[in-house]
């Protein structure tokens, strides 16, 4: 009996001893929380292609993108600045994870729109998820005049689609890597022996240089014997500079195309030939 009483007392007093010896606060380890990775990329584009980042609910990310002529044009062309293709557009957050966007490019006078949904968030702690993943489906409509007016041209010939699965992991505070399996579908191709569906996979790497600047690398590999002989893969290297409300993305690339179908399947210039272009995206976020 005495033993029992003793045990009662020990058990009863032990939490008090605990409370007195340790901190007044509850043990933070007691309830593990889920820590979500954030800022895997500075903005929702790696360079040309989309990153897994989305704009938050009721925020509008206004984007202006330029790709200039070849740097090899030299001083006469002011290193390519005399020529430019551009896209003006924006991304809007319907929710924190569901975004829609529209844009208009000078390339083929193309209007594009997309729906993007982030369905997985990298996290540690109570819930362990190794990657962040998003799905994005783009649609583009070229509105320039048909190049072969004698052919039977239909509206559907103007339309192309791009579907992408974006999977990214923030490995460290500085290093993030993204893989982007991609399917581009063109309703109309130039000749019968060309494919309407083109498979590609993008790889994006970003390394933080400082808290506000990053170095980005992006390469889209198109699976062999899908494109015409004179087409090539797009490779881009750039810097993100974040200044608060703006993100400036300055880069070098071999594509002049500011939307997916154009830079994945229509790139002709080759880095090895020195056909490199300077380009930039400027992103400004507005709140509503």
């Amino acid at each position, binding site marked *: 009996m005495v033993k029992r009483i003793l045990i009662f007392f020990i058990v009863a007093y032990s939490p008090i001893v605990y409370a*007195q010896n340790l901190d007044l606060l*509850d043990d933070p380890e007691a309830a593990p929380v889920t820590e979500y990775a954030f800022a895997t990329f500075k903005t929702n584009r790696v360079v040309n292609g989309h990153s897994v980042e989305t704009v938050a609910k009721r925020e509008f990310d206004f984007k202006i993108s330029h790709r200039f002529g070849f740097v090899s044009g030299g001083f006469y062309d002011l290193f390519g600045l005399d020529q430019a293709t551009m896209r003006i557009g924006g991304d809007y957050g319907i929710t*924190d994870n569901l975004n829609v966007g529209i844009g208009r490019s000078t390339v083929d006078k193309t209007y594009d729109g997309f729906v993007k949904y982030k369905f997985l968030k990298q996290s540690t702690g109570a819930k362990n998820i190794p990657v962040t993943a998003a799905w994005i489906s783009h649609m583009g409509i070229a509105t320039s005049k048909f190049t072969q007016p004698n052919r039977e041209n239909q509206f559907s010939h103007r339309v192309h689609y791009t579907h992408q699965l974006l999977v990214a992991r923030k490995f460290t505070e500085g290093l993030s890597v993204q893989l982007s399996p991609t399917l581009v579908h063109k309703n109309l191709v130039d000749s019968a022996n060309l494919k309407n569906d083109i498979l590609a996979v993008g790889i994006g790497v970003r390394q933080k240089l400082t808290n506000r600047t990053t170095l980005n690398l992006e390469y889209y590999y198109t699976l062999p014997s899908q494109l015409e002989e004179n087409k090539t893969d797009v490779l881009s290297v750039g810097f993100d500079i974040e*200044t608060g409300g703006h993100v400036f993305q300055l880069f070098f690339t071999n594509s002049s195309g500011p939307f997916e179908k154009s830079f994945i399947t229509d790139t002709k210039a080759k880095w090895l030939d020195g056909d490199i272009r300077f380009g930039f995206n400027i992103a400004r976020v507005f*709140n509503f």
Partner: protein
Amino acid sequence: MKKTTILTFAILGLMLGAFKNHSGGIYKTNTGNINFFSHTSIEDITADNHKVKTAFDASSGKIQFSALIKDFEFPKALMQEHFNENYMESTKFSKSTFSGIIENIAAVKTTVDGVYTSKVSGKLTIKDVTKEVSTMGTFTVKSSVVNTKATFTINPENYNIEIPKTVSGKISREIKITVDADYHHDH
């Protein structure tokens, strides 16, 4: 059998009494509020953390706070991201803490409804930089809930928070911190 039951009750009663005597002084909450407010002519920036852990000991006057940086909520998502990523580096410095003393704890009668004030001073740690701070705290006791309010200002540059020149004019060097917590007796 009956004897044992009585004995058990007696022991339980004794334990409860003992429990009350020993921990009766601790008041706690895990849902305290900390707000910060930066005012400049260009922009006002404010954020709230509603998940602050805090407790004080009504007998010794010891008072402690712990706030996760990630729990600060901003009206703009992008500001919150920049706060964590650029200014507070919350992956590296996950929390901010305060450990101090309610200097005139004897005057704060946690069992009697009323409003009491006392100087509170101690060590504030932000981004692993620890500085002494002190301010006046107001303790409002109402039906066994002790509400504590306090306000003080800090200079972010004293806590290793870098402010780039481009946004220098948008962030105050006197950031007002407001603490507001409802403590309950810890049973």
